[in-house]
């Protein structure tokens, strides 16, 4: 099986992961932070799929299914939490969610 080289896929995954990470660190909106986490998860998933293709093993795709399921569960919980946060604090700004260290 040929096509996209493995190195490119890994670079792509790394790029996506970093994009997600930077998004997580710089965005203050919780919703966007969740989306950034999704991006990072997908980057990891891409790496797994790429590796599975590279070594002709099914494990990579199985792992991607796991990650997909987990991401769905995570989003369900995460969105529920965001809902509660918005109800309580009337804002989506993550920096406002502080009870510790009000300095």
């Amino acid at each position: 099986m040929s096509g996209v080289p493995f190195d490119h896929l890994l670079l792509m995954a790394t790029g996506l992961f970093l994009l997600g990470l930077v998004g997580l660190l710089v965005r203050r909106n919780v919703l966007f932070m969740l989306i950034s986490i999704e991006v990072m998860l997908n980057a990891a998933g891409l790496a797994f799929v790429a590796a599975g293709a590279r070594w002709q093993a099914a494990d990579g795709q199985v792992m991607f299914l796991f990650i997909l399921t987990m991401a769905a569960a995570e989003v369900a919980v995460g969105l529920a939490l965001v809902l509660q946060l918005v109800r309580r604090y009337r804002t989506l700004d993550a920096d406002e969610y502080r009870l510790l260290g009000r300095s």
Partner: protein
Amino acid sequence: MFDLIGWLPGLPLLGYLLLALAGRRMSRTVQSAIGVGSIGTAAVLALSIAVAFWRSPPSGDAHTVVLWNWLQVGELTPRIAFTLDPLSLVMVLVVTVVGFFIHLYSSEYMAGDDGFARFFAYMNLFVASMTTLVLADDLLLLYLGWEGVGLCSFLLIGFWYQERVNADAARKAFVVTRLGDVAMLIGLLLLLTELGTLRISEVLATAPLAWTEGSGVATAAAALLLGGALGKSAQLPLQTWLPDAMAGPTPVSALIHAATMVTAGVYLIARTHVLFELAPAVMAIVAAIGAATLLLGGFAAMAQRDVKRILAYSTISQLGYMFLALGVGAYSAAVFHLATHAAFKALLFLAAGAVSLALHHTRDIFAMGGLRKRLPGLFAAFLVGGSALAGLPLVTAGFYSKDAILWQAFAAPAGNAGLWVAALAGAFLTSSYVFRMIFVMFFGQARTQVSHALGARILVPVGSLAVLSVLLGFIETPETLGHVTLLSTFLAAVLPASAAVHDLATETLLQLLAVLAFAAGLAAAYLAFVVRRSETMASERLPGTTPALERFLFEGFRFDGLYDTVVVRPITTLARANAADVVDRLYRSVETGVRAAYAALAPSQNGRLRRYAAVITGGTILLVALAVFR
């Protein structure tokens, strides 16, 4: 009859309880009736017991009444039990009879005081403790009485506690005597562990079998008991509390600090003389301390201005005589002097109290003067008491008792010429300071007005004690003068007679020298304070001394300053240095460390979600980097 001895401490204790619990609701009359009546009844009881004892002594010259078992801890089974024997009988008589006169006197002396009931409650408790002390069958019970009198002394010295000086004096007396008490307690525990019993009769019987003479444990036990005796009887080096104890009301000084409590040490040594004889070194120390103390007290009394302080130093000095007698093994002479001293010193204190009552509470002798004509009765009382204290030959009690000690200091096996010279010098000093006091107070020009007439309840005790001060001497006279030995024969069952040499010629010579010392003291005082004072009116100074020396004597050889430098200052300095608690610093450093770590780490827990994410990222990168590039 003898079974009633439990009431001797019991009656005063009952009086104490009544006055302490319900005294406030009684009238003055009822209060003084209870306070004086309880002691009076006890005195009558003691006298009738004494008569019965004299007529038909119980078998073995001792009668024990067991009231109940105090406690039972393994081998130790101390009982509340009283033993009556000749020695305790003499002590009980002194305590209750002299105590009764002083209580009677107090009922008038203290009449205007707000704390009337409290005063009599304490006084009754004191007599109860003292009779417990002298009647105790068990050293533990004796120790209970011992601490009881210490407590009452504290309460009564600080009776007028609103003034800080009095409270300080009370605390000083308590702390200083406590030093001795601790030594005594250790001594008792030593006796208990070594002999397995604290019952006095058993201790005295088993100690000579268990210990050889001069052995280390016997010396330690005797020395520790001596420590207790030194504290209570105000002997060197624990004498400093007694002059300050004069802060209490005068009847207290008379009862506690002259007649009874301070003699507890003498009683203790006489009672446990068997232990002391097993330790000849300690006996020698007792005699030496006695000699040193009697000189110190005499010198210090010369320079005092306050009449009560003169009498206080004279008490220290006379107790020194008793210790000297004990140290040379002349126990009955010590007890004899104890009894006569109780009478004439109580007389002097009561008379001094009456004088200062009549003169607006003046106590400075140089502010008095010329009282001979204004207060002739008290002058007579002072003359009798003073003569007895100084040892006026042939007629006064003090002469016979002091003469017995002087002779024993020379002639007893443990006595020597040095001790005798010290005692003789002490006799000269006694006579000079006594007559200095009398001449300054009663002769010369009058300086104050007599403002207060004295009632019968003051004059009767003073008169009775004056009679006792004379008559008591005739129960025991030296071989050269009649050779009456009522007291020493009576005490022979408890206190062995001193094995003094018999040499009538020497004894007569020494007696003449003692008389000379008395006369010389009298003459010196007369020259210095009557003749010279009338020539040069202003002089209040002690002749033949520099002001510095007189100041030194006035302050009692500066023992207070010495103790302040050696003991009090270092302790307070140490306490101040340790105010922050050095040991605590170790533990506090743990706390400081924890606090510092908290302060350093707390900012990391700031609740900023994105910061957390960044730190997690950084940490992961670090871990991965470590794993990869290691």
